């Protein structure tokens, strides 16, 4: 579904991604871990097409097409979804209004009729139950005055309503209490299917107890330096990242 080859990118003149290789297949759940500032969010933003990031070389193909020359809204309409590490506020635009417009943009792209009021209400009701947010949040402006946890749950609500093919979740577990963590995980599990893929960026093994990843990758200094299965996450939790750094420098020395 997604193939990233030797991807390099910079932001504000700094080289951040220094050759990322990653391949994500349908049905896969990948976890990306790595120290602060290693480039995890940069990778997510580059894939989604944030204008602040410049791809300097490498490729990314999504569903067999070049992803990187598509406009961000078209990437989204073709099923790429990014749950933001820091969701922004949109003053004055109600959550429900925004969601409806987003959903209709997708539907139009897929040649479908716009959602009618009743159907939309059903979709919303079903999904707010899963993510456990209050109905009142739908009538409030997008993320404005939401608590940290509410913002993250709101991202999952968008994920469930928009129903993409590839979901990239950037630290959706950060700032969540343990109950919220379970709820967010169950949202992701609900989303999980054979024809969809998930990439979760996280710092904590505990999320991976609820969302069982097929692959775990370590992103360090702009490269994926180690990949493994769930056991790798546990090892990182127990030992931190230094041993990987050591391994790498040994490799370099050899």
């Amino acid at each position, binding site marked *: 579904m997604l193939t990233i080859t030797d991807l390099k990118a910079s932001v504000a003149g700094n080289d951040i991604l220094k050759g990322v290789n990653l391949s994500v297949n349908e049905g896969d759940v990948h976890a990306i871990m790595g120290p602060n500032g290693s480039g995890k969010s940069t990778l997510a933003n580059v894939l989604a097409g944030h204008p602040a990031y410049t791809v300097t070389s490498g490729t990314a193909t999504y569903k067999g097409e070049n992803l990187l020359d598509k406009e*961000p809204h078209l990437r989204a309409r073709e099923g790429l979804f*990014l749950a*933001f590490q820091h969701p922004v506020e949109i003053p004055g635009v109600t959550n429900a209004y925004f969601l409806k417009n987003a959903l209709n943009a997708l539907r139009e792209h897929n040649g479908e009729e716009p959602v009618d009021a009743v159907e939309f209400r059903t979709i919303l009701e079903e999904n707010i139950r899963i993510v456990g947010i209050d109905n009142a949040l739908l009538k409030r402006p997008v993320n404005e005055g939401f608590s940290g946890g509410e913002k993250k749950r709101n991202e999952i609500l968008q994920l469930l309503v*928009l129903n993409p093919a590839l979901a990239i979740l950037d630290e959706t577990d950060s700032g969540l209490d343990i109950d919220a963590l379970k709820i967010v995980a169950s949202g992701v599990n609900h989303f999980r299917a054979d024809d969809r893929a998930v990439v979760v960026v996280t710092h904590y093994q505990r999320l991976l107890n609820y969302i069982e990843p097929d692959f775990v990758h370590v992103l360090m200094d702009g490269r994926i330096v180690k990949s493994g299965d769930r056991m790798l996450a546990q090892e990182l939790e127990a030992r931190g990242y230094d041993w990987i750094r050591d391994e790498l420098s040994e490799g370099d020395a050899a």
Partner: protein
Amino acid sequence: MADEPKTETMDAESAIQNEYRWGFSTDIEQDMAPPGLNEDVIRLISKRKNEPDWLLEWRLKAYRHWLTIKEPSWATVHHPPIDYNSIIYYAAPRKKKLLESLDEVDPKLLETYEKLGIPLDEQKMLAGVAVDAVFDSVSVATTFKDTLAKYGVIFCSFSEAVQEHPDLVRKYLGRVVPPTDNFFAVLNSAVFTDGSFCYVPKGVRCPMELSTYFRINAKNTGQFERTLLIADEGATVSYLEGCTAPQRDENQLHAAVVELFAHEKATIKYSTVQNWYPGDENGKGGIYNFVTKRGRCDGDHSHISWTQVETGSAITWKYPSCILKGDHSVGEFYSIAVTNNYQQADTGSKMTHLGKNTRSTIVSKGISAGHSANSYRGLVRMGPACNSSRNHSQCDSLLLGDQAAAHTFPYIDVQNPDTTVEHEATTSKVNDDQLFFLQQRGINPEDAVSMIVNGFCREVLMELPMEFAVEARKLLAISLEGSIG
């Protein structure tokens, strides 16, 4: 047909420069004053309109005063000097040549109508195409008038009011905007040709929004329009002026006057959507809109609310104001002003608190894009006797791109210590992260901008009558098209 819509299909820029290019000049020439302004021209206007002597005197007094004053220069707008002697101040109502079909209409204009969702028949009316019998504006207007008449509401053209209700006109004309007011209002007082008049009698709640009428009768009321609206004791009226469809006019200068008079416990809600031709991308050829709008809350517990959505004109100079004379009276001003390309807007409000325990609210949302300049200018005056009065002003500016300018000029004059005046102002930019967030959810860049702008304006949009709010949203989007690259 009295309500012949004007032919709006010509390129307004060249139209301003050359009225005679479109082959209807023979119609025009017959009854028209020579360009320029003098007492004879004013006498001609008054005579042609069959006005009583007092009104002629009233006009002349205004004119004589006008000769002694100068065009104001304090607004943050720039334009070449206006040659008042090249303007034709009187031309008989003209019947312009109608087009055969929409095929003859400027496709760009049609595209805009389409985006605004204006029904086909109305598009024809607006564009000056002959309409078939199915859409009979005259009969719609008549039904409308009958209903109003049942409630004793008078709603007619200003000229008609002068003939049919001279006492009412004489009693109220100039009570709120005297014929010796500002430069443009004085000019208007001398030469106004027509406009609207509305009187809502005691205790009557006007049974409908006075709006539909305007949509289907978007006729040319001239460049010096005069509106007078009176709500008698306990009366309530909601009045909607303007139209979201782009309006073009061969006259570059527009200097209208609107006077609102609210008696005890009366409520007037006055909403405007202004979309005059703003000029081309380089700012050439747009309308100069210099308007004086003022309401007087004369009686205790009276209430006047102005709501405006200003997207058009090359230059807008406009400060809908309230004089809060009655005790416990309330004045409100809700405004959205959008400027794009080279448009200039200097707009805001003036709240003058005279009575006790009076309240005023100002909510101003300015959006500037392109190379435009958008200024909020407001005055809150607390008179010596207005104990326990309060004002709250909120002025927010939103910038799109980095060539646009926003300014805020709040003036506060407090002559009574027992009052509260609050002013808040913010300036923000549409930020990349917000735009990216919306696009990441599949929303295209232009819709993303318009969603953010609409959100920014929400408080004001909510003040508009429902169906107009929907149109205003679309209008905002269209006005800002292409403003983010």
